[in-house]
């Protein structure tokens, strides 16, 4: 009898197959929902292709004042730079529907990203909101950290200062940094979830 061995990627895909349009759940400790989205350069990115890597998902809307706080202060670009240098795949995700705040042409996204000094690995486009809904993304920013085995280890707010003030970046407890540092060192994540804050995702 031939025994079929699933590759890790296929196993991930099989474990996290939501029905089309259904709302899956992004549960801490469980496999993160699968996705496949184009980026602003037309390349497609799937979670499965990043098996074996740490992945950060960052829900973004450049016109939201909470996102502005983290970009105008340089906080988000600095995190992106620091962790992509450590091999983390950092994916910005835009689930703004056409006509709603945060929905831009690819040219505008690229130009705004450059002016912020953004250092994400790719900026993914989810105008139908399918992936946002699969992850239960509520705010911009809303952050997720996924392990190389495809499990969700952090979901929630970027830090503990739910304001739009740039001055609140310094001194805030950054939950994403903490989760990445702990998880990448093989330690349990002390705070696997925290209240996400920001503008609503513009589905």
């Amino acid at each position: 009898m031939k025994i079929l061995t699933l590759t890790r990627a296929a196993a991930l895909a099989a474990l996290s197959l939501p029905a089309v349009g259904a709302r899956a759940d992004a549960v801490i400790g469980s496999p993160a929902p699968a996705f496949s989205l184009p980026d602003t350069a037309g390349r497609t990115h799937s979670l499965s292709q990043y098996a074996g890597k740490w992945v950060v998902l960052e829900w973004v809307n450049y016109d939201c004042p909470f996102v502005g706080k983290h970009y105008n202060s340089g906080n988000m670009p600095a995190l992106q730079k620091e962790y992509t240098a450590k091999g983390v795949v950092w994916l910005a995700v835009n689930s703004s529907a056409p006509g709603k705040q945060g929905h831009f042409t690819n040219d505008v996204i690229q130009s705004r990203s450059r002016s912020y000094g953004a250092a994400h690995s790719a900026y993914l486009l989810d105008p139908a909101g399918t992936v946002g809904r699969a992850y239960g993304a509520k705010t911009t920013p809303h952050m997720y950290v996924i392990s190389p085995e495809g499990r969700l280890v952090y979901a929630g707010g970027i830090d503990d200062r739910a304001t739009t003030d740039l001055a609140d970046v310094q001194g805030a407890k950054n939950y994403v940094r903490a989760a990445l540092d702990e998880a990448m060192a093989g330690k349990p994540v002390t705070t696997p979830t925290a209240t996400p804050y920001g503008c609503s995702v513009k589905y």
Partner: protein
Amino acid sequence: MKSLPVLASLFLFSGLLGGPVEAGDASSGSANVTVRLVSEVLSIRPGKTFTVALQLKMAPSWHTYWKNPGDSGMPTRVVWTLPDGFKASELQWPAPARAVDGDLALYGYEREAILLTEITPGPDLPSGRFTLAAKVSWLECRDICIPGKASLDLTLPAAPGRGPAAIDPASKPLFVSARASMPRRSGALKVSHAVEGDRLILRIAGSPPGLGSPLEFFPETPGLIEAAQPQAVARAGAGWTISMKRATNASPPAAALRGVLVTNSSSRRLAWEVSAVAAPSSH
């Protein structure tokens, strides 16, 4: 000096009359929200708590948020600068409303929100005038969100003597309206909470007058329930149960689950403060 007793008596006279409440910058705002700081009293007395109102008026379609803003947004915040010895209570919030937009919901206010704070002067109050300064920050949203900030202040004279503080008749309607919008406390209300799978269940026993369908629960703590999901309300004998979908990755609720219960009947909107006790699960 000869002039001193005259000055002192002039001051005493104005104190007896109640004196003007100076509104320095008591009103400010943005394009969509005006904010105003209003005192209920004309003068203050040592150790006697009095109430001030922060009134937010929102342009049509714009809203501000409750202490738990729901899925997004930011609650209105006040940072007080008070004279030595003065204390300010936490903000007292009017009953919120829920606005659902697809998968997401917010808890907050449209048109107007009057937040109350109780201020307690110290036990010793030299005669003079006392300035209460408030740095207010809020988030006003419609389809987009704009952060708002204002610095407001009020100056109140100290009135000599004992007895209750003089109420300002001009601000009375505002405070009547504010208190009517506040959730009330009722000894008749007995609420327990339990987690049953992916549902958070409230069991309400004891029916204070006016409590009835439609009924809605607003938890004080974010991240407990899915705010956009409908709450299943059912009669249970003389009481009610409310079944709510827990939020993904929700922690178990605290032993005392605090929030506001709102009856949104056609004639009146009534609200009660709730502190639900943990009940043993039925499973």
